[in-house]
């Protein structure tokens, strides 16, 4: 949230700079099973964001000190490729990627039936190939599809989606300009079938009414993205019989 200053983010006709309505998502595509070497994988494009996720496991957790006797641990590595933004990103982990890896792992742990795999580890590698605001949400969405593709049991397909505030107006799915110059950002991880929230962060300030409206946008968008995720998984195995 860089503060909006004099930057105009809403057009005179009430639409956003890229022509979207206030509650309109950027185009989303999902593809399952894109990496043959991984146990499960997915590619998600969301606007100009591109994320590829590979899932390995469950496998024996190493080092042994991270093992849990009653459940699996989820080891998430979120990484942005050096060429993913206009300014080259120094390769390797940094404070931001560690934070996103941690919150993503916690979101996924509440969805995956980790108690089925004691002492095990499920590795989730999230690689952001192109970034245009909202990469942590795209990473969560792609991770859910990749986990399902790997045959990992889950309570639901978690969906990552964000709303925010620009020019004192609540909008869905911030793009780069809105993220940089807007007033607030509210990324959440939603379980569409149960209506639960597994992950929520807020950057900036929202009044209770704005917060409720932002969550309403998020839930609506989560339903739309969930449909695309289910369709992608079905498309991968379409025409099949058990």
């Amino acid at each position, binding site marked *: 949230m860089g503060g909006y200053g004099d930057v105009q983010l809403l057009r005179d006709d009430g639409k956003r700079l890229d022509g979207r309505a206030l509650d309109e998502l950027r185009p989303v595509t999902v593809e399952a099973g894109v990496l043959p070497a991984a146990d499960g994988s997915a590619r998600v494009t969301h606007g100009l964001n591109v994320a590829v996720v590979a899932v390995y496991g469950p*496998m024996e957790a190493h080092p042994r000190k991270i093992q849990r006797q009653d459940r699996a641990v989820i080891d998430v590595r979120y990484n942005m490729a050096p060429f993913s933004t206009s300014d080259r990103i120094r390769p390797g982990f940094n404070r931001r990627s560690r934070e996103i890896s941690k919150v993503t792992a916690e979101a996924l742990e509440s969805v995956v039936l980790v108690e089925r795999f004691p002492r095990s580890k499920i590795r989730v590698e999230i690689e952001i190939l192109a970034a245009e605001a909202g990469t942590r949400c795209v990473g969560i969405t792609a991770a859910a599809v990749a986990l399902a593709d790997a045959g990992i*049991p*889950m*309570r639901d397909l978690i969906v990552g989606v964000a709303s925010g505030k620009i020019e004192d107006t609540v909008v869905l799915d911030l793009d780069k300009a809105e993220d940089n110059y807007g007033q607030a950002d509210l990324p959440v991880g939603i379980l569409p079938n149960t209506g639960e929230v597994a992950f929520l962060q807020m950057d900036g300030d929202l009044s209770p009414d704005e917060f409720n409206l932002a969550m309403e946008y998020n839930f*609506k968008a989560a339903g739309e993205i969930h449909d695309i995720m289910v369709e992608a998984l079905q498309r991968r195995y379409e025409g099949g019989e058990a």
Partner: protein
Amino acid sequence: MGWRLGRIGENRMSQGQTGAEQRLVTPGMAVGPSAGMRAGSGIIAKNDEFIATRLGWLQTQHNTVSVNPINAAYMPRSGDLVVGVVAEVRNNLWFLNINGSFQGLLPMSLAPWKVEFGAARIYMDVGDVVLARVQEVDECHNVVLTMKGVGLRKLNQGAVLDVPVQHVDRIRGANNERLQTLRDLSDCRIMVGENGRVWVDGSSDGIAWTRNALQRVTNEGHKTDFDALMAELEQLNKGDA
């Protein structure tokens, strides 16, 4: 709370089928009421409803609803016949890679030879392939293997091929009928481990034919009628699969 809509996917829950009888379900999808039915593998009961937890085909047999997963990791069970690869050797035991989350432990007391302490490496070294059986699995997934039993041995020749674990039962067929068909067609000795490893021994042509046939099973086994695939394989001459 206006945003707490809950159960957003409720209207879509009955969707997701690709055939008249077989439903492809995804995690979180409601698959029907739980009244009078039992939850099988890949299903949890919540609020009088069954929820799928895995990606796979929905099955109902004998009042039990379950999901036949499209992808699955090997979970060892006592009595499983497995093809293992020696991964580590200690003074009195071997650790075998059995294609599961954890290595299997083969103590020298359950080996088919009389092994002196410290001489385990003389009998089997890292990389050797063995046919073993799962003796015991505890709640923490520790796996103990045995090589004491009819047919359990070190495999000194042939090739080891990988197939998806969820296709093993279908490759074998009822009473190993399909497996016998594969043996007849390839003129090879074939052993199918529960862990998705297949040992094949015979002529190089026979092994190549079996490799191609199993590759087709791997690629198409989840979506093609399996009997039709096997019938098609039967029609193909050796080396043409």
